[in-house]
């Protein structure tokens, strides 16, 4: 199906999310949509899939003007979207996921649908079991399921939003092969991403977005520097790669075993040096989170010992770890990191130790003012944290870290942030390393892991690789390990 967007405009309050967008996508193409977070890609996709209505402008499908009123209406008209976090129902079975929302009689014909799932699954060389529970599947398999479901519903346009986050190299190859096959069958594929390489590898044509505007359409052969310039309006300097790793061992892990009801990690041995940065790579749910939480004292290992500065901390709780200089920054900022409904000042009061009974509002305000300046937070001492943007929330979290820290544990520290915030945050973290703090962090962005780590651990299906020197490895090598090859 051919899609034509004419003069699409959309504002949210003061934010001009889509500014006069004009774009035509012929059928059978794989169209890349490239841009930073907040560039307006998602808004446009949500307009195309009926979540939002454009303030002005037209959508034409096969040259017919249409009004798309809801996500369901979009599917009926042939436009389906695969969301970054697939919109399925984890506690339910694959077949029920397929059936949920379908039209028809009271009792669906389960046998028939089961056969169709198997047929489609075979056609694309997926292994989808109709009786499996979705929560037991990986993100990659859930994407496959969602794609099959949308095809089964007869979509002619498939939109994919950052689909390669959290899936293995293998699954990525398979996904790309599938998309190429679908395009050859006449489907229109819209591939939304902020990863240059993937867009270059896959797309027939790329539209680049910046600050709500479509700033350029590019045809192959692609030049990376051209993309970078279009995306950022300038050439971006990535911070220089300095290491503050010392020879002093700060943390020693001996034969650590970790377990939750889905996963078992065994015999992890590692020494973390003062000032060292260790990146944890792997598909989401491969054990990185368990590992981080163990280092924070939030989870007790089922075997082995943790030594901090030579002292055995095994079985101690988070607050004991915290008092010896460990800090944990969770990925979900408003769920675990900050307290919605409380002001920045209140957060700073809470983060410090106090012996006195009464709160000294005056000095708390002063301290907050100072931190707001140092950390460049856009907000006032009385701003409630949920009113801040994602980047400012992350800055606030960093500002809340206590002064003298020895180990900082971070889950996806720059997820959802624009590149400049990300670079700024890492420069702040490097300062901490200079002060002898070690950092362990997870990220689904391999470039970030390679850029900032001294050593890297790869997690795959309950296995943990020996530490890999970041200087002597490549994205490809890591990608193979993450996908389960070369173990």
């Amino acid at each position, binding site marked *: 199906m051919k899609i034509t967007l004419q003069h699409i405009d959309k504002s949210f309050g003061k934010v001009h999310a889509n500014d006069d967008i004009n774009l035509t996508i012929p059928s059978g193409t794989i169209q890349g949509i490239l841009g930073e977070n907040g560039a307006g890609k998602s808004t446009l996709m949500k307009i195309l899939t009926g979540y939002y209505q454009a303030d002005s402008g037209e959508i034409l499908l096969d040259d017919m003007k249409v009004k798309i009123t809801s*996500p369901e209406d979009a599917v009926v008209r042939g436009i389906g979207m695969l969301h970054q976090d697939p*919109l399925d*129902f*984890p506690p339910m079975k694959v077949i029920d996921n397929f059936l949920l*929302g379908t039209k028809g009689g*009271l009792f669906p014909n389960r046998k028939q649908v089961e056969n169709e799932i198997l047929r489609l699954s075979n056609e694309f060389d997926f292994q989808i079991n109709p009786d499996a529970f979705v929560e037991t599947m990986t993100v990659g398999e859930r994407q496959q399921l969602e794609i099959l479901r949308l095809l089964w519903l007869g979509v002619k346009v498939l939109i994919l939003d950052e689909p390669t986050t959290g899936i293995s190299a293998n699954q990525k190859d398979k996904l790309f092969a599938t998309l190429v096959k679908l395009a050859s069958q006449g489907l229109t594929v819209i591939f939304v991403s902020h990863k240059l390489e993937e867009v270059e590898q896959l797309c027939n044509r790329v539209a680049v977005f910046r600050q709500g505007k479509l700033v350029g359409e590019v045809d192959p052969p692609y030049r990376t520097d051209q993309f970078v310039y279009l995306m950022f309006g300038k050439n971006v300097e990535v911070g220089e790669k300095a290491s503050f790793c010392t020879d002093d061992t700060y943390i020693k892990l001996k034969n650590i075993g970790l377990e939750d*009801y889905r996963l078992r990690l065994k015999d992890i041995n590692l020494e973390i040096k003062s000032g060292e940065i260790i990146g944890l790579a792997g598909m989401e749910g491969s054990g990185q989170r368990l590992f981080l939480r163990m280092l924070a004292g939030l989870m*007790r290992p089922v075997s082995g010992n943790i030594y901090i500065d030579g002292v055995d901390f095994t079985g101690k*709780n988070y607050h004991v770890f915290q008092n010896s200089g460990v800090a944990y920054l969770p990925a979900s900022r408003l769920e675990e990191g900050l307290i919605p409904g409380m002001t920045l000042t209140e957060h700073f009061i809470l983060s410090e130790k106090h012996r006195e009974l009464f709160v000294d509002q005056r000095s708390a305000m002063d301290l907050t003012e100072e931190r707001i300046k140092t950390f460049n937070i856009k907000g006032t001492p009385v701003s409630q944290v949920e009113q801040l943007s994602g980047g400012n929330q992350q800055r606030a979290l960093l500002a809340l870290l206590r002064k003298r820290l020895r180990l900082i544990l971070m889950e996806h520290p720059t997820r959802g942030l624009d590149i400049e915030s990300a670079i700024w945050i890492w420069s702040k973290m490097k300062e901490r390393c200079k002060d002898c703090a070690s950092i362990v962090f997870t990220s689904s962005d391999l470039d970030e892991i390679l850029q900032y780590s001294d050593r890297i651990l790869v997690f795959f299906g309950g296995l943990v690789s020996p530490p890999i020197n970041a200087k002597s490895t490549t994205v490809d090598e890591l990608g193979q390990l993450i996908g389960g090859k070369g173990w």
Partner: protein
Amino acid sequence: MEIATLTTLAGIVEYAVPVLFASIGENITEKAGITNLSVNGTIILSAMGGFVVSMNTGSLLLGFLTGALIGAAVAAIVAFSSITLKQSQVAIGFILALLCRDLGYFLGAPYTNKPGIFLSKVPIPGLSEIPILGPVFFNHSLVVYASYLLIIITFVYMYKTRPGLMLQGIGERPTAAFARGANVKALRYLYTILGGALVGLAGPMYSLAVKIGWAGQLSGLDGVGWIALAITIFGGWNPLRVAFGAYLFGGLQQLGITLQSTTDIPIQILQAAPFPLMIFTLLLVNVGRAEWVERELAAMPEKPRKVISKILRALRTSPPASLGVPFEND
């Protein structure tokens, strides 16, 4: 089997009925993602309303209908407050639980201990002659037979039909359900009100069938609604397991009646017996989630660790993921 035993078993089946209607009604509501905490008050108010209406009109049907309407009306307030206004579901539910109880006692005061009409037994021809099963299951009033149907229909609807799958969807992940065409808010209204109507039916089931009459505070209905809510949790939001919980409760009540006639334990103590049990069952299904349990388990050697965590997981029940979370379309 002795006659006395059969009577006791039949009593369990009968006593479970009102609480079964209430907890399956709540099960439906919570499956859609809304907690209706008003159950305790609703049952008292609708028991009174059903009794008074049937007494004045001479129609049992109108009595039950009144109960259902009261339940639906109270649930509509809960729905409006939580779905449209996004106020705390706990707050509104609790206020209504207290208000409806007092309203029931206030409006019902003039009718206390008045003679009314009640549902009589209708043995099912044929089935009631089956030895053992007949007298236990098929020699009852119509509401008992209705309860059998309710269990089966609710289960089949929830897990086997298209709208039933959508019902699970809006409680589990409303954003995904919306993407598949569900009008989440409207459906939540529908199931909250439908569930409320079933809860409302529990009232007249007491006053017109199981615990006949209206005696104000002495009707002994205060507390039943909270048990029904606990049974929904114990039952893991699955109608079959919920029904099992309701029969356990019926058994406990029947046991109380037996003990009352054979021992001299004060009746109030027997009436309170289900509550510690309620707490205990909630402890069983929830303790596996506690952090200290995880820590203690991690410190154990492998064999006992595996066995215990398996047991805890089997007991554990999980609510619909979006229970109590308001929904907006984007």
